[in-house]
Structure formats: C-alpha cells, structure tokens
C-alpha cells in the first residue's frame, strides 16, 4: 500500500465520494486506496501521490493542474486505453493505471535528461533539423519515434461498443453551473423543451466547490435549490457526464457522453460553459503541487482530499482568498497569500483575521523542489512582467494559483461568434454571436452571483421565446463591472534563467514565444503553428492568453489587435470510436438464404447482398465448383438469382420508354417474348445489361445487374421526369425472388409440378416469357440461357421464394439437380462467351469495343448514348473484346486483369479467365488491339511473377457455338 492518507474527515468535504466504499487499484504496479466516487487523480492525491506524469518534451515531473480534465498533466494509461484523463476518470476497484511518457520509472525517468538539453531544442527546432545532410533523418527517426507519443495503442484491445444518438430540443444549455441552471430553468418555465448538458457527474459547476459571497453554505444552498428546481421541471431534460464538443451551423451540436456521440439539433443554444483558469508564469511554475486554486477546491470539496499540508496562494482576485479559507477549513496551513495586486474586501479581511500572512504587490518568481514543490521565491512586482530579486523563500508543499480566467468561448466561436479582447476586463469576450447562440455566466463576462442569476434567467427565457418564433426576444446585454477585478493584466514574470512555462502540454516557455516573434512569426496564427503553443491536448486553454500577452508585449501591439487563434471543434478529445459509432452496414439476404446455409454455402458479397459462391468446404472449392458446373451441363442446376434487379415498366408509353433507355429495338417486341437489353450512358459507355420481358403491350419487366439496378432505376426515373412520358417505373427487386433452373433436365423437372404454364418446347420457346402459377405459387418465367443450357429463370413474390426453392430441389432430386453458386455460373457463362458488365467492361467501354454492336438499333432515332456511339464508330475503335484460349496446357493460369504484352509494350488486358473442365482448357476474354483480333492470332499474357503465357484468339461462344443446347 502506498502513501499516507491525505483525506479530510470533516463535513462539507468529499461530496462525491462514499467513505463507506473503499477500493484498491494499482498505479505503476503499486497498490493504492481510494473511495467509490474518486477519480484516479483524486485517489492518488489522497494517498500523497502528487506526481502523475512526465511532460511531453523535457520529461519534467508533472502533477494535477485543473482537476477537471482540462490539462495534459493527468494523462495516464488504463489497461488498453491510452490518454485517459486521470482527473476525470472514475477510479474502480482493481484497475491497473500506468503513467506514461518516461523511460524507467516515473520517479526516475531517464528521458528527463532532455531537460538539460533544452537550449539545443529551441522553438521551431524541428523545422531546422534532421534533414541535413541528406539521409540523416533515418538515424533520427527511430529514437524520435520511440520518444514521441503519449500512451500505447494495443491492437489486440477488445472491441468496445460505441454508438450515436440524435437529440432534438428547443433550447440547448451547455453548462450546468449557476448560470446554466438559471438559464435552463427559465427556458423550460417559459415553455421551451430544454436540454441541459454538463460535463460533470453532478450539476452545479463552481457551486460544487466554490463560495458565494464568501460563504460555502450559500453556494451549497443555491446549488441544492437550483438542482432541485431543474430536476422537477417536466420540460427540462438533463444530461450529466456529457460534454458538448462542438457547435455547428443550423443549430447542430456534438456531445460526448460515455461511449456515445450525441448529435443534437437545437433551435437556440445558450453557452454557459464558464471559464478556464490561467496560470501564473514564473520559473518552475510547473512543479507538481502547483495547481489552480479551483483544482485544490475540487480536491477538497468533491473528493475530500487535502492538496497539501502547507500552502502558498498566489492570486490577484478574491477567488484566491476564498481558496485560502477553504484550505484553512480543511486543516491545511496557509503559509502566505501572495497578492499580485492589492485585493481588498470582506474575503481578504476574513483571511487576514485568521492570521494568514498577506503579501501584496508581489508575485512568485521561482519554485524549488523536483518531484514536488518544496518552497517558492517571492518578489515585489516592479513593473509589467518585472520584479525585484526574490528575497523571501517560503516553504510549502502546495501552491494555489488564481490570477485570472479566460471565458470558455470555444463553443461560441465554433458557431461563428467573433472573439475580441476587452481591455476593460483583461479577458476575451464573444461579440456578434450568430442567430440562435447566446452566452450566459462567466462565458458571457458576467461574474457576480446576483448578476449571473438575472442575466441567465433573462437569456433563458429569451431563448425560449425565440425558439417559439416570437420576434423581438433578444438576449440581454452582459455587463458586469466586477469582471474587471478577476484577471491580472500580465501575470508573466521572466526570470532570466528560463523554465517559465507558458504551455505545459508542449513545454513552451516565455523565451520560446519571444523567439517565435523574433524569427519573424509575429502573427498569432503563425506563432501558434511555429511554436506549437496551444496545439497540445489542452488546446491552449491555459496557454493562449499568455501567448497573446507576450506577443503583444514583444510587438508593442495592443492585445485587441493581436487577435486570437481559431477555436475548432472538438473542444475535448473525441475517439475515432465515437465518430464511427455503431456500424450500420445493411446486409441483404435472399428468401432462400437459410436454405443456402443449410446446404453449406460459402457466401460472397454482391453489393449489399450475400450470394452463395459455391456449396461445400473451402478446402475442396475447385472440385465442388467443377461438380456444380458438371451438374448443369449434364443434368440440372439451380441457382438463386434473386439479387438480379427487377423493374416493372407500365403504362401506354412503356415500349417507347424502353426504346429510349436501351440500345436495341423494343416497340415491335412481341408480348410473351424477352429481348436482350444493353444500356449506355450519354457518352456511349456500357453501364448495364439484362433482358426486357414483355408481359403485355404496356407492361415490361426488365432485369438489371445486381450492382447496377439502383443506378438504372435512378436513370429511368430521372429520364421519365425529363421526357414526361405516360409510364410508371417501379423497382421491384426486393419484391421478387428468382432462381434459374438450368440444364438438359430442367424441363423435365418443372413438368413434374402442377402448373398452368405449358412448358413444352414449342409452346414455350427460347426467349419466351410466361406468367402463371407453379406448384401453386404465382410466377414469372423467363426462358433465357445465361449459362448456355436449356433453362428457366423463375421469378416469384419474395415471400414464396424459399418454398419454391424447396419444391424445385425436391422435384429435381431424381434428375440429379444440384444447387450451384456464382463461381460455377462464372465458368458456365464464360464458356458461353457472355460478358459481365463491370467485369468485362470498364468505365470507358463502348458497345462496339465489347463486341455488342449487334445490340445497337441502327434505325431508331434515339436512345441514350446513340450520338456518342455513332461518333465513336465513325472514329474507329482502339481495342476489342475477344475470346482467347491458353495454348500451353502446362502454363500457369492467368488471372483477371493480367496484361497482354507485345514487343515489351502493354497492348491489352484479360477481363475474365477460367479453367474450363468442360472444354479441358483455359479460356477467357481479353481486350486486344483491333489488328490482333482475328481467330488464331497469338499473343502473350504476363502472369504473376513475370512469366509469359502463350494464348490465341478463339471465336466465342467457346461452348456449343451453334447455341443448340439452350434451345432443346
């Protein structure tokens, strides 16, 4: 067990922890105690473990700064999760927490030697080093990569569940402090559906740990009253432990709560996000134990942890004195209050009356101690940023800083508010917020409790009225003279020895910012990029203002003229998992899917569909596929083709419409017949094919390829709108199941079933189409032959698909029927020389190149792409799709897209290739120059490894060239 307890056993301390529920966890392998409700950092602090991490560049020891998840000092690794903010993450029994960014132990980090080399790592050093002489980078890269980065990603980490949710509200209030609560209550009471979001587990903001008019009791009473009222309002929804990470146009907000990303749509948004404490800049101001006064108050009030035994407070406002009172109440000795100015008032008097030494007009100028502050040097302030020599060293083990704030304007800025520096209050202020955005509380520049309440209430009710569409309900002006007493104008004191940190994340000192300007980067945006100020995990919350002050001092410009860097979402770290959320990846299954599973199908994707590739073990795929091919060629096979697109084209103009959409002629197509369809786009490129079945003079059922049917449907509906034809187009793909019964036994099989369709050869010829019933199921039957055998493509309403499959499989069993998959179909169709659009064509293929000129109607005046195709025909083609066979049976089998080489030049490519068991050779389709397309012409294909495989042009179809088998 490590450390002695530093807990406060008094009423009014430890609001969030349950003393009756102790727990243990490990930090760097050592056992620590905590309580239920603790964060990792509070539990460690409670056990005197103040050192939490090492800094990014110089590996300086660091401890908690904000106790509110706003700094990088508390980043730790928890199991497989990197970059966990220890001051926000609840501690849990048994968790293993590790510190990060050190070599060796946290206490004895070997990388801390970097601190001694800081003079060799000036600002922007990485722009000037590591690239000369040529090739030197590779010697730097490995050690830099070892040293860089915080935390460790575990690629074997368990998949965790993240998701997203939409929320809609009239008024969104960001921040559950006193201003946010008042605004939300007012909005809800005015009648608006209101959503209040706060990042902490308990509502109240600074009321949870701070004081109102010197009184802790007053703060607690106010919080209790406001929270009770808020929770009692029906129209007010409250989300705690959720942080709004970005505001966007049109009232959109993003928020992170646990493993969920909320996408929020609000008519009005009130930003009551409070403010960020600003550091006092002096030598060694980053030592563990030096923390913001509010962080110390959080430790005491929320977690019952004493920040130290002997404290020094550096302040320029009453908040520092209030913290002194809290320390005294908690039992911590307050060695001194160092007041940068001459703060006065009852709070100061109260501190003084309790015997605390108060030193005015002075500041801290140095700190001693390494792993924890041991003493601080105090000196009188002699001018802006100037002091006398330190004459007074005060022993202490904690230092509280309260020298000013910066309003949390990030979110308002995301939404489009302009941020300006207000000299009167020495803080930034948001002006001209866009419609739908208002600010309240400290974010609006309102600080005194009475004014906060009045302003927030008025802002809340105005937002509610605006959300309801009431005109003239503008939010009130934010004007609070007390704001001028919050922030010291220049809490930056250069020692001459360095190590006065401006940006704790990036280890940037006063000198680094000054040198950035001296290097010529005098615009604040350039300073940010050159120095990296504000680029760390804190995103400049504690660095921006002081950086601006230094730039102003060096350039002589007023701060209002310096401007600010740009605030960009997200406000807090968002994980990729948050953005990914729960994956929604639709999968389409045919009606027969479960039957395919039962038959042992191996599935492949086709768009969103899953299709059986073949039926059997992966280990025996080639033989299985050959068996399926053989069954179709010798007996019968059944393939699920439900994924094919189906479009019903109905209306008086149906034939004329089809005629314009497809390249062939359809107006004279007889009812009861199917005709091949080829679709081209306006540039004459082949985009789809299928068949058009004419079931009635004004009804066509058109099939389309699986992947292109949505595109075809869009093209048809778009064209129909343009042409205003009297026709209706309906995509009925999902409404129909379809299966292709193919093979010499196909007719015999269907003829065993009860049907009102005459399946005899003469009554139902090749390319005929029929409607009727088969085994009691309504069907559309197409006698088409993609695989080159007699067969029937049977379409039925999807709900009947499985039953029809079962019936056909049963009826076919005595005939040797086997199910076959897409792999067998690819072989069968290639043996027949049929192309697959998208595989044997590409984004430039025209019908002439693809050898489809027979499907181009020459006489009709128009089809989409006709003009382009005619121009291409007149110009002549540069390639042509031909069949080929590999001439050396011992050669390796080429693959799709292997190149055809002649005289060292690429002259073509293979589009499809298979080893045909039926034909006993390797066959395929390939693009070749027109001069090489005569049957018998030889060429070579370069295969994997560079070997050249001889092949020759072969006429298609390879199989059954007379087309006799599909017509039996």
């Amino acid at each position, binding site marked *: 067990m490590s450390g002695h307890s530093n807990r406060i056993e008094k009423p009014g301390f430890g609001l969030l922890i349950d003393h009756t529920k102790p727990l243990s966890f490990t930090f760097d392998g050592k056992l620590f105690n905590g309580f239920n409700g603790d964060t990792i950092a509070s539990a460690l602090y409670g056990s005197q473990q103040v050192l939490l991490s090492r800094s990014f560049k110089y590996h300086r020891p660091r401890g908690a700064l904000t106790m509110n998840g706003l700094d990088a000092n508390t980043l730790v690794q928890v199991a497989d999760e990197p970059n966990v903010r220890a001051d926000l993450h609840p501690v849990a029994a048994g968790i293993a927490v590790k510190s990060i960014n050190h070599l060796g132990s946290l206490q004895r980090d070997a990388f801390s030697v970097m601190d001694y080399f800081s003079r060799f790592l000036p600002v922007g050093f990485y722009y000037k080093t590591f690239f000369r002489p040529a090739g030197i980078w590779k010697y730097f890269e490995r050690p830099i990569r070892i040293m860089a980065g915080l935390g460790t990603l575990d690629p074997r980490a368990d998949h965790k569940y993240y998701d997203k949710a939409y929320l*809609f509200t009239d008024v969104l209030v960001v921040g559950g402090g006193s201003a946010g609560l008042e605004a939300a209550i007012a909005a809800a009471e005015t009648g608006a559906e209101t959503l209040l979001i706060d990042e902490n587990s308990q509502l109240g903001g600074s009321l949870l740990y701070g004081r109102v008019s010197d009184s802790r009791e007053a703060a607690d009473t106010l919080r209790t009253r406001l929270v009770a009222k808020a929770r009692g309002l029906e129209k007010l929804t409250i989300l705690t432990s959720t942080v709004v990470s970005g505001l966007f146009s049109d009232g959109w907000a993003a928020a992170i709560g646990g493993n969920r990303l909320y996408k929020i*749509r609000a008519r009005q948004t009130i930003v009551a996000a409070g403010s960020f404490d600003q550091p006092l800049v002096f030598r060694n101001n980053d030592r563990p134990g030096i923390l913001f006064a509010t962080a110390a108050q959080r430790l005491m009030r929320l977690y019952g942890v004493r920040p130290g035994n002997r404290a020094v407070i550096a302040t320029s406002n009453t908040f520092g004195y209030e913290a002194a009172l809290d320390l005294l109440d908690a039992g911590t000795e307050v060695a001194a209050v160092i007041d940068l100015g001459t703060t006065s008032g009852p709070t100061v008097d109260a501190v003084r009356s309790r015997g605390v030494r108060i030193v005015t007009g002075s500041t801290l100028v140095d700190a001693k101690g390494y792993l924890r502050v041991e003493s601080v040097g105090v000196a009188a302030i002699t001018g802006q940023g100037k002091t006398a020599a330190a004459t007074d060293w005060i022993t202490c083990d904690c230092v509280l800083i309260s020298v000013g704030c910066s309003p949390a304007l990030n979110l308002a800025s995301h939404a489009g508010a302009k941020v300006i520096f207000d000299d009167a209050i020495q803080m930034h202020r948001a002006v001209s917020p866009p419609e739908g955005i208002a600010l309240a509380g400290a974010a609006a520049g309102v600080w005194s409790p009475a004014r906060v309440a009045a302003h927030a209430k008025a802002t809340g009710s105005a937002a509610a009225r605006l959300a309801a569409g009431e005109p003239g309900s503008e939010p009130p002006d934010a004007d609070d003279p007390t704001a001028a007493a919050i922030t010291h104008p220049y809490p930056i004191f250069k020692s001459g020895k360095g190590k006065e940190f401006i940006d704790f994340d990036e280890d940037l000192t006063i000198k680094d910012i000054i040198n950035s300007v001296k290097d010529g980067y005098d615009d604040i945006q350039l300073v940010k990029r050159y120095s990296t100020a504000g680029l760390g995990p804190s995103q400049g919350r504690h660095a921006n203002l002081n950086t601006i002050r230094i730039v102003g001092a060096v350039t002589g410009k007023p701060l209002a003229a310096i401007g600010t860097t740009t605030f960009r979402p997200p406000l807090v770290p968002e994980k990729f998992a948050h953005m990914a959320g729960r994956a929604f990846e639709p999968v389409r*299954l045919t009606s027969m899917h479960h039957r395919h599973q039962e038959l042992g199908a191996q599935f492949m994707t086709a768009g969103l569909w899953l299709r059986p590739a073949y039926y059997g073990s992966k280990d025996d795929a080639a033989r299985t596929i050959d068996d399926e091919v053989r069954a179709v060629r010798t007996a019968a096979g059944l393939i699920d083709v439900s994924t094919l697109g189906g479009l019903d084209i*109905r209306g*008086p103009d149906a034939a004329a419409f089809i005629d314009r959409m497809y390249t062939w002629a359809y107006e004279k197509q007889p009812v009861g017949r199917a005709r091949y369809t080829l679709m081209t786009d306006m540039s004459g490129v082949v985009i789809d094919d299928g068949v058009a079945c004419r079931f009635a003079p004004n009804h066509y059922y058109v099939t389309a390829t699986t992947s292109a049917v949505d595109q075809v449907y869009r093209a048809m509906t778009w064209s129909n709108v343009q042409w205003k034809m009297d026709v*209706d187009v*309906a995509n*009925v793909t999902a409404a129909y199941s379809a299966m292709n019964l193919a093979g010499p036994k196909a007719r015999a099989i269907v003829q065993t079933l009860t049907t009102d369709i005459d399946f005899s050869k003469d009554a139902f010829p090749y390319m005929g189409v029929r409607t009727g019933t088969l085994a009691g199921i309504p069907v559309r039957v197409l006698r088409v032959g993609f695989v080159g055998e007699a067969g029937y493509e049977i379409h039925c309403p999807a709900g009947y698909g499985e039953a029809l499959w079962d019936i056909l499989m049963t009826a076919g069993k005595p005939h040797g029927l086997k199910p076959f998959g897409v792999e067998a179909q690819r072989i069968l169709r290639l043996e027949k020389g049929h192309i697959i659009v998208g595989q044997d064509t590409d984004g430039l293929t025209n019908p002439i190149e693809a050898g489809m000129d027979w499907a181009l109607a020459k006489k009709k005046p128009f089809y989409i792409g006709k003009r382009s195709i005619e121009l291409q025909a007149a110009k002549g083609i540069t390639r042509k799709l031909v069949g080929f066979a590999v001439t050396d049976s011992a050669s390796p089998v080429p693959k799709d897209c292997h190149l055809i080489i002649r005289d060292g030049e690429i002259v073509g490519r293979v589009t499809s290739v298979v080893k045909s068991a039926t034909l006993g050779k390797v066959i395929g389709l390939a693009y070749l120059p027109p001069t090489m397309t005569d049957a018998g012409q030889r060429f070579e294909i370069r295969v994997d490894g560079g070997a050249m495989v001889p092949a020759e042009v072969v006429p298609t179809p390879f199989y059954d060239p007379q087309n006799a088998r599909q017509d039996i």
Partner: protein
Amino acid sequence: MTTPDLHLRRSPLRSALLKAGAKWEALGDIAVSAGLGNEEAARHLAITDLSPLPRLGFKGRETIPAMQKRGVTLEPTPNRAFRQPDGGLCLVLAASEVILLSPLGGDGGRLKELHDSWSLEAGERTYPLLRNDSHAWFAITGAKASDLFAKICGVDLRLSRFPDLSIAQTSVAKLSAIVTRADIGGTPAFHILADSASSLYFFDCLIDAAQEFGSSVACLDVLRSLESG
C-alpha cells in the same frame, strides 16, 4: 399451432423470432409469431414483426383519384396516414403513391379486392406494387419508442413533434424506411416499412438499439390487445 415451413409464404424473420421464443399461428397463407411479449411491455417499448399482415401499394399519376374512386379514405396530402373504416391504414407517400396496410386483425380481404379490381387493360394510371414482399413491416410501440429512434434515425420523432398519422420517409439504421406513427389503443406506435431483404439486419438493429431501454419482442396478439384496450 403451426410451423412456418408448412406454409408457402414465409417471413424472412422467422429464424430470429424463433430465437426470441416465438410460437406460430396460421394467418392466411403464412405463419405469424405468437406467444411473445405482453401489453405492459408493449406500452413501455416493444418490437413486433407485422410482416405477415397483408399490405399493398399503388403507384402512378392517377393513384389518389383511383383510390378515392374505390372508397379508400385519403386526402392528397403526402406524408400523411389515414385510418380506414376497417382499421387499416392508407399511407399517402406522394401525390402518386400510396401503401395500404391491413388492420391488425389480418383481414386482407379488402386489399385483395382492391388488387383484383385493378386491371392493366383498364388504362388507369395507377399500378399495384407487391408491398407484401418488397417491404418488411415492423411496429415499435411504447412510451420509449422515440428514444429508440433517436439512436438509429436522424429525424425528430419525439411524440410531441411527430403526431399521430405522420409519416417520415427517411433513413433508419442506414436503410431507406417509411416511418408512420399510428397509435394503437392510445399506445404510441410507429410502423416501419423497410426493405424485406434487409429485414434480419434491420431487426438486429432495432433489438440492439432498444436493449438499453429494457425492450421486448412482442407479437400480433399483444398489439391486438392494445387495440381493443
């Protein structure tokens, strides 16, 4: 009692419903799940597969007058649903398209009559669509229904903002869907029509999204009980 395989028409969800503990009852030419859920759960949050119930679509430029001529209760107001005298619903999706949903009793007689009374030869510019087969039909019932939708749909479907008989044609769990609110016996009820081929995926998404609210899978009998009050 029956089993789905004894019927020629089958719900693509039967394997999932079987896992949920469904028993089966015959409803015309299809088996419908039974024995799932209860009224109290359905008033809180429940998912029910209504896919076995009859439904029919009509599409075409004369659809609205053609339906009015046949006595269907509707107005030419897109994205509005209209309750029919028999308890069914007519969803007006556009000036040229409607979907008719049967009453929860499952009587498809009226829809069959509408289908059979149509003929291509008549030349009416309205054309039937097999919505039984193209679209699965789910009901999400209960006070927490909007919370479920918040996780899978970007449209504001809060009960206060999406009143009874509203329709949203939108994306739900990345799937095109028609969402209709048509309360059942005072219980908020959202009817979703979505691609039947994706129905197993969609059902999984609904179950997953509903889990945190303590949802259940219900059956037609439960909704009928809600309806009868």
